[in-house]
Structures are given as C-alpha cells and as structure tokens.
C-alpha cells in the first residue's frame, strides 16, 4: 500500500523529517519505506525552443538546429530525429548533463557540425519507451526552465500492512498513526453535500436476499454527469500511489477508496435493467464476464450484485463490463456497502481474484462511519468533478446495525504484559488519537468504545497491544533474568549431534533434502511404507512425502553425478513419513539416518592404488557405529528388493531397525558412476529409546596376546560369518578375536569351487602370559573341527 506524503497532509500536519517519520511508523507496526514516486529528470535538462533548422550537409538523416535554451546564447545542436520542427518547444540536455551514471554529455562535432547539447526523446529521460522522435512540448512551457519542474516527484511511503489492519490500507489509517507519533490532530475533509432534483427512491430500488452476507447496502445517485479525464491534481495523486487514471468518475471512486479505505463501486444507471439492484448468491455454474475481460464460472459461494435481469458485479470483488462507467455515461449509481469478510474471502479464493476492494472487505471494512463518509464524499466529488446533481435522499439497507464494541483496559495489565508503567493520561491520549472513544476513565482503568473500522480490536489484550506498539522503544530490556528450571533435559538432540559428528568424521557430507518427492520415487522406498499424499502439490514430482531417506539422497547423487563430482559420500538425519490413517495426523513419522556413497575408499594417493568404497566399507562403518553406542546387532539378508546386489536387514533386539546394501551397478548405467552405490538407513529414534550412554570400563589387558594365523581352503559356498562364529565358539576360553584378513581365489591352484580365507586369531588371558604350547593344542583341535564340519583344509 502506497500513501503519498502530500496527500497525507490533507489530514494531518507533518513537521518531522520524513526519514524519521518512516522509522517511527515502522517501529509502531506499519513497516514502511520512504520512496519517491515519479521520474527524476536529470539536472541540466531545460525547456528549449527550436529557432531554425537546416539539413546537415554531410548526413542525410541529421538536422542542424539553432536552439534557445535560456542560457543566454543560441546553441547549435545536431539532431537525428525526424520530427524536429522549427518553433517547437523541446527538452534540451545541456553540455555537462549526466544522462546516465556513466554518461556525461560533451560538446562534440558530428560530421563536421558542432553540437552543443542534445534534444531528448522520451526514453532518453526515462519517461517512456518511445524513441521514434524527440519530445514536442506544449507552447506554454517556459523557455530555459528546468524540465524537472514539469515532472515533480512525490515522496511516498510504501507501507506493508499486516493482515489484521484493513484500516491501515488508506491515507486516513496512516494519518491516525502519525497522529499518535507526533501528537498532531487527525482531521477529515468536511463534507459539503448538496442534494438536488428527484428523490432517489423514485429512481431506483435495492433488495438484498441475504442480509447475513450483505449486512448493509447504501446507494446514492448522481445525474447528468459529464465523464471526461480528471483534472491534473487528481491524476497526479492517483499516479503517485500507483493507480492509473481512467476518467473523473472512476478516479473519484478510487480517490475516496485511497482516502478512507472504504471500497466503492459506480454503475452506469442507464445500463441497469430496472433500474434496480438485487444482491444474491450466484447459482452454481452461472457465468459472468468481469471488467478484466474474463468470463467466470461461478459457484454458490459468490455473492452477486444484479440488476433486474442479470448480474452486474461480483460483490466486493469486481464490476462487470456491461455496467461500466464510460464517456457516454450520464447517470451514476454509487454503491457503498459492507460485505461479510468470510463471504468475500471465499469468493476471492475461488475466483483467484484479489482486488483493492476484496483485500479490504475480506479483512473487514467499516460498516458505519467510513461507509457513510465514503458514500457521501464520492457523491460530492463526482458532482464537483463531473458536474451533475446528487439525487435527494439515499437508499440505505441496514436492517441490523453493527454496534461498536466496548472494552476496559486495566492499567495494571499493561504493566503485567509489557513491563512498562504507563500513566492513564498517556494510554488515553494514544487510544484517542487512534479513534477510540473514552467512555469512562480513572487512574486505574479506561473504558473505551472501539471504532468499527478496527475489527481487529475486541479484547483488553488488544488494547494493551495498541498502547504497547506505540511505546515499543520505551519497553525496557530486562538485564537481570530469572529462569524457570526446566523440568527435563533433552538427550535426543545430543544423540543426533553425536551421529552427525560420527559420519562427518568418516568423511561424509551432511545433506538436507526435500521432504516432498514424486509418487513413483516414494514407491521405490526401501521400507515399503504407503506414502502420504499432498492434496495440493506444487507439482507431480512433489506430490507425496518421502517414505525413506534413500530416494531423496539418490536425487542428490544424480545432481552430483551430472556435475561430474567424483567422490560422493552423503548422509542426512530427517523424518520419513508413513501414511497411517489411524494416527491423529494421518501419518506416522520416523526420525531416520540415511547414508549414501558412491566413492573411492580413500582419496587418490601415491601410496596406494585407488579402491572403491563398496558394501564392506559401509558395513565396517556400521560395525563401528553400533559398537560405539553399545548395540549388538545382526544382519539378515533380504532378497525382496531386485534393485540391490545385496541388501540386509539390520536387527537389534530382534527388531528391524535399519537396512544396508549395495545397488546393482546397471541401475546407474546412465550416470556413469566410478564407484558402486552403497546405502544404509537406520531408525535412530528407535535406537535412541534403547540407548544407554553409561558404559562401564574394562581394564586394559595386563598380559600379552598371542597371535596365530590360519589359512583355510574351503568351498566357495561356505559363508565367512559361519566360519568366524564357529572359530569364536570353538576357540577356547583364551580366544578373544578372530580377524578375517585375506580372501584368496585361484581356480587353477585351489580348484574352481574353492576359496582360501586367512584368519588371525588372538589369544589372551587376563591372569597370566600364555604359552605357545597351550595354544598349539587349541589350534589343532579347532582345525580338526573345521575340517570335519566344513571340509576345510590348511593351505
């Protein structure tokens, strides 16, 4: 909303610097910036007169002009425009004028002819886009005068009006706020209304079908008007606040809207069948063409203004083409009505039509004072601008007047909420300046009548706010604070922070992915959760909530792969969402960790050949992660998902809490990845429930370990973990670890169905140094068992 300072001065004296005014309004809740409306013509552009012209001897399209620009000498200027004419007044940029920040006009010779300035076209001065010729000015423009004088700029305030303040969408509203700030009185333009001629009731009639939707409908008629362009002062004011002048009637209605904030409508009376006004809801599917040349299909939610036959306007939104006021209009019906905010809001949403009128009606217009003033003011203004006579009397349908509310402000509550002590006089002055009427007052409380143009104010707390925002900078900042001791201390966030540090430490990048994904991506989710649909999605690629962490991470993988990023190691902690109709919200949320890598195992090094970080890389990290947090877990191969080379369920306490796997390479063929894609997802919220941070320490070993290596040849089909478990179980009481450190396959040497695995066994006692002989025994027994059980032989 733009308000003009010049216009505001009609209602209030402004005697503080405008920057300060803007700052103070901002502090008081009307966030605004001071701007200048209009074009700033560069200094050095003057009105000049072309005294004579002659063609350039050496250039067909150029003209050499003698120009008087009031500088005391006659200037010689070369001009390229076809429309330059002797005797005409033109804008002339003198030598030294800065036409652009980096362009200063100089005296030059153009093909031998001296040019001491420039005759300007519209676009060169920022006044328009026309470059077809120079500007030709009216003859009453004064030669030598700064051209800028004919293009005044107006200081304006660009105000951001919050959703609760319809009253602020007007010069009146802002003027009242200024009144609180400066203490100057707010004053309205006195109404002078001269009724003449016929009585309005003899001309037209108004009927309202639904007074709940239209509690008040008030009308006046002005006859015998002459519709023509508005006078310059009115055009300027409208332009300054960003409105395009149309004609004196439409402009007058807009003027009163911007003045009072009350939306009005004008109809060409002769084009109203009857002529009469009927207000009713649309029938389903009814069609209507609005002023913006759109044919609209309506529902029963749209309130219509109709004449005796057809609709003529969407109530509170926009008029129709048929009854529009134009240059042939002679008689005018002025509508000043109050529509129920929710009715206008519904229609505006349904028709996707937001207008100056609808913005005010849906927030709540004033059914009383402003409605009446605006109606009469518009009638008077039309009579003044377009001639014509105001018909006697008015039509005013208002079966149940909306009363002003009352509220009482206890001064103690101002202190209790804001922390400042304000005197009764101070509160009283503030509220009065804002238009509240003081009904009763003493030094403890104020009883006020709330003006109906403030629908946002109802309760005592609202009055506290009115007082508080106007003393915002006086509220002290408490320097000694007492705090309530929290009832609990969250441990989940630190748990998550630990996880973040863990994976970052392993060289992974934390990501933040979109929670919204496409239905087909969600269907690929590794948990198989039914996805929760968005009813009003931004696009089909974002029409459900993610059902796992992996699909969005695959999106990030794709972006990185397309940009040829080599090593990609990503993780994220966030919610995945499972549709659950039995839940209050319709959804069950799981806070999960997702990990996705397609990376080398370590960076390119001079000491090692490059290797891929494959499934076993992530499995190793999982092992560390679980051990670190004291969880015992099992992996169980999951063969349900064909996209995976290997996929395992991660089980803790026999419950599924995660999955880990490696995708089949062919799935990513198009991305030309260097490394396999491995993933892991963990339900960290569940892990947190079981997590016990206090671990007791184990004393470091007091006696040395004995290591024994063992290379065994066995069937390729024998799973390594079966063998490891067997070794750990059968290795005797001193065996504390079994590390698989080599896998060897050589079909010629070992046989096609054989593999060799090497284990390093660590033996230790916490009571003594072990002797080789003790271990030799264990080893030979162990080996026999493996030989019998698994057909293993020593390599």
């Amino acid at each position: 909303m733009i308000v003009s300072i010049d216009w505001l001065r009609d209602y209030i004296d402004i005697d503080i610097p405008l920057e300060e005014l803007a700052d103070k309004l901002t502090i008081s809740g009307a966030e605004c910036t001071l701007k200048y409306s209009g074009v700033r013509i560069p200094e050095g552009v003057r009105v000049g007169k072309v005294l004579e012209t002659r063609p350039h001897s050496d250039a067909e399209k150029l003209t050499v002009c003698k120009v008087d620009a009031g500088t005391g000498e006659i200037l010689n200027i070369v001009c390229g425009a076809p429309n330059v004419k002797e005797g005409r007044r033109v804008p002339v940029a003198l030598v030294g004028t800065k036409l652009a920040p980096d362009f200063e006009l100089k005296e030059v010779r153009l093909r031998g002819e001296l040019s001491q300035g420039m005759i300007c076209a519209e676009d060169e001065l920022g006044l328009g886009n026309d470059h077809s010729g120079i500007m030709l000015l009216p003859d009453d423009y004064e030669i030598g005068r700064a051209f800028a004088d004919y293009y005044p700029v107006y200081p304006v305030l660009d105000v951001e009006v919050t959703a609760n303040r319809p009253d602020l969408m007007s010069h009146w509203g802002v003027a009242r706020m200024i009144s609180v700030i400066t203490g100057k009185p707010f004053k309205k333009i006195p109404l002078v209304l001269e009724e003449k001629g016929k009585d309005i009731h003899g001309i037209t009639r108004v009927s309202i079908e639904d007074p709940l939707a239209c509690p008040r409908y008030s009308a006046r008629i002005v006859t015998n008007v002459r519709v023509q362009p508005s006078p310059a002062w009115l055009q300027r004011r409208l332009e300054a606040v960003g409105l395009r002048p149309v004609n004196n009637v439409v402009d007058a209605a807009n003027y009163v809207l911007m003045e009072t904030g009350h939306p009005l409508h004008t109809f060409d009376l002769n084009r109203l069948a009857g002529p009469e006004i009927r207000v009713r809801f649309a029938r389903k599917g009814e069609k209507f063409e609005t002023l913006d040349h759109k044919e609209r299909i309506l529902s029963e939610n749209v309130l219509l203004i109709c004449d005796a036959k057809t609709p003529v306007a969407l109530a509170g939104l926009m008029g129709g083409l048929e009854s529009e006021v134009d240059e042939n209009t002679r008689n005018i019906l002025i509508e000043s009505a109050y529509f129920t905010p929710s009715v206008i809001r519904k229609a505006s949403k349904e028709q996707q039509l937001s207008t100056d009128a609808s913005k005010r009606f849906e927030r709540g217009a004033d059914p009383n004072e402003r409605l009446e003033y605006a109606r009469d003011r518009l009638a008077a203004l039309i009579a003044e601008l377009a001639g014509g006579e105001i018909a006697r009397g008015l039509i005013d349908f208002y079966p149940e007047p909306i009363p002003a509310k009352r509220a009482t402000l206890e001064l103690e509550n101002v202190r209790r909420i804001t922390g400042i002590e304000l005197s009764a006089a101070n509160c009283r002055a503030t509220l009065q300046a804002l238009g509240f009427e003081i009904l009763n007052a003493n030094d403890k409380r104020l009883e006020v009548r709330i003006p109906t143009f403030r629908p946002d104010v109802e309760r005592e707390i609202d009055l506290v706010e009115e007082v508080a925002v106007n003393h915002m900078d006086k509220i002290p900042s408490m320097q000694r604070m007492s705090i309530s001791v929290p009832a609990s201390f969250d441990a989940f966030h630190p748990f998550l922070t630990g996880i973040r540090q863990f994976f970052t430490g392993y060289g992974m990048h934390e990501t933040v992915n979109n929670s919204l994904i496409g239905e087909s991506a969600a269907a690929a989710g590794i948990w198989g959760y039914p996805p929760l649909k968005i009813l009003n999605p931004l696009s089909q690629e974002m029409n459900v909530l993610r059902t796992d962490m992996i699909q969005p991470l695959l999106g990030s993988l794709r972006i990185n792969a397309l940009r040829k990023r080599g090593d990609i190691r990503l993780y994220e902690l966030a919610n995945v969402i499972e549709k659950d109709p039995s839940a209050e919200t319709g959804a069950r949320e799981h806070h999960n960790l997702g990990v996705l890598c397609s990376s080398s195992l370590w960076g390119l090094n001079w000491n090692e050949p490059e290797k891929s970080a494959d499934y076993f890389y992530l499995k190793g990290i999982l092992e560390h992660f679980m051990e670190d947090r004291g969880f015992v877990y099992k992996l169980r191969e999951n063969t349900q998902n064909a996209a995976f080379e290997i996929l395992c369920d991660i089980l803790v306490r026999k419950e599924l809490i995660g999955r880990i796997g490696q995708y089949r390479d062919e799935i990513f063929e198009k991305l030309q990845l260097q490394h396999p894609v491995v993933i892991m997802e963990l339900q960290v919220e569940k892990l947190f429930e079981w997590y016990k941070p206090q671990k007791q320490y184990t004393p470091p070993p007091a006696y040395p370990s004995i290591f024994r290596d063992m290379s065994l040849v066995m069937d390729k089909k024998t799973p390594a973990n079966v063998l490891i478990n067997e070794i750990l179980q059968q290795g005797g009481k001193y065996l504390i670890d079994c590390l698989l450190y080599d896998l060897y396959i050589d079909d010629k040497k070992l046989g096609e169905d054989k593999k060799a695995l090497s284990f390093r066994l660590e033996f230790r006692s916490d009571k003594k140094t072990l002797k080789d002989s003790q271990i030799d025994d264990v080893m030979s027994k162990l080996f026999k068992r493996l030989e019998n059980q698994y057909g293993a032989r020593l390599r």
Partner: protein
Amino acid sequence: MNKATVTEIRKQFEKALEEVRDTAALEALKHGYLGRKGIIAGLFARIREVPPESRKETGELLNSLKTDLSAAIDARSMQFAVPRKQKEITDFSMPGYAMHHGSRHPLTQAVDDMLNIFQHLGFDIAYGPEVEIDWYNFESLNFPPDHPARDMQDTFYTEGGGVLRTHTSPVQTRYMSTHKPPVRIVAPGRVFRNEAISARSYCLFHQIEGLYIDEGITFADLKGTIELFCRLYYGKDVRIKFRGSYFPFTEPSAEIDVSCFLCGGKGCPVCKQSGWLEIMGCGMVDPNVLKAVNYDSERYSGYAFGLGIERMLMMRLGINDIRILFENDVEFLKQF
C-alpha cells in the same frame, strides 16, 4: 652359558628389532634368531655345556626366550602388514596421504549453534511432528477458520485431514497440552510453505521456536532474552530493534531487526542499504492460546519467538539462491 647370556641376547634382539624398518629386515632378523641355524638354535645346541642339574632350568629359560622373541616378531610384522614400496621413501616433501574430509550442513550447524545458546539460557528442547492437524497448526494458535491471517502461510494439505506444519509454533500448544507451567522450551524443525520454488523461496525451511510461560513474564523479559541471544550469536556489538507487527498467536507482536552483521549498520546490498536485517518474529503469547491449552491467562503470561534459519544463513554466507541449500552439491557442502 647362563642367565646373563640369555638376558644379553634378549637385549641385543630388542635393539635390533627396533631398528627394523621393513618386512625384509624383519625376515632377516627372524632368520638370524629363530632360523634353523639361528642364535636360539645355537643356544639350544650348547645346552650340553650346562651342568645337568641346571639343564632343565636353562631349557625353560631358552624356551621362554624363544616364545617371547617369536611373539615380538609377530607383533612387529603386524605393523608391516601392508607391504612397503620397493623404493625407500626419502623425499619427505611428498604430500600427506589423501583423506576423505566430511562436513556438516550449514543449516543444521546453525541450528545447533543457536540451540546451544538457548540451552545455556535454561531452555529445554522440544519436538513436534511435521504433519500436523489444523488445531495445533492454526486454531489453537488463534487463527480462526477462514481468516485472512491464514493466507500469510500457504499451506500444504495432506490426505487424512492433516497439514504440513507451516511454522514450528504448533509445538507451543502441543507442549503446553502435556506440560504444566512453567514451560521454557525451544523447538527446532522443518516447516513447509506451498510457494513456487524460486531463488528466493523454497517449499520447506527451518525454524526455531521459543516459548516461556510463567507467572510475571513481561515483554521486557522477552527483550532481555533476545538481546542476550543476539549478542551471543551475532557478537557483542550487535544492536537490536523491536518494531510492532502482527501474528495471531501473540499480542503484542513484534519483529526484531539486528544491525547488519556485514556492514555494521552503515548500509550495504545485503541489508538493502538500511543497516538492519530482519531476523525473527516474537511477542507475548495471546490469552486465546493459553486458553486453548487450559492455562490460566490471568495468572500466567509469557513470550514466544520464532526465527527462520535459511534467510539468516543466506545473508551471512552471501547466498542469493536458496535452492543451493537443498541441492547437496558436494562442492558446496565441503566448504563448511
């Protein structure tokens, strides 16, 4: 041959072992001591020289020497498990081995930094779901049905009658519904807005909500807390400005500006020459919100605030396209 000889040999071995730098040298050492013709074998051969009554003792001594040496060699060989390059490296100007470097996302880092400060100020952390019901997201927060204030927040609706929370404020009423006053919490999380994705806006962003309800809490407490937070987060010289605003769930409401941390308030493109940056909304909790959770609004009062992480972070990092925060280009991520 006596105990001293064995001790001497042990010492020599340990010294030699220390000097071993590669597998080949270790093999040689092993061969020298434990080989068929090695020192230990030699000692066993000389056991005949020992008087018979102490042969058993000497035998045990030699056995334990053998066990210890072979254990020491085994242990040492572990350190050479990865074979060294053939060439001995003498050029120590060679670069260090390349390690993978990880990084934290700037958004979660900023959230952690802020939560950390609020925890020091005695706030507990609370959580709420991302899929909300209308009552928590709007109605309990004093957004009447069909009110224009709802237009301030373009909402995603989900099947089953839910909404994606448009702010972290529903955590306020969720928490108060299950906790008696006093409450003092901060709630971090994702929030969603149904806005076309562009350089300036994304369909989700992060907020931190704060709430303090107790007896005798005033706007002055709010000012004090926020000022302290800003000094701890933005630096002690930061200036703070409160200006009136409107949120349905607070009354009075205010927006908070801090002096621009890039130009110090002189004016620059980031603060659009104003010298100020808008960082959060706040206010005194509206009595209607307290009533919705059955708190006695005559007895209790308190404040709430909410700050958006993305906007603040974009200003601080000089990001002019919000989408880069959600693309996860590793070349972006690794900078943090």
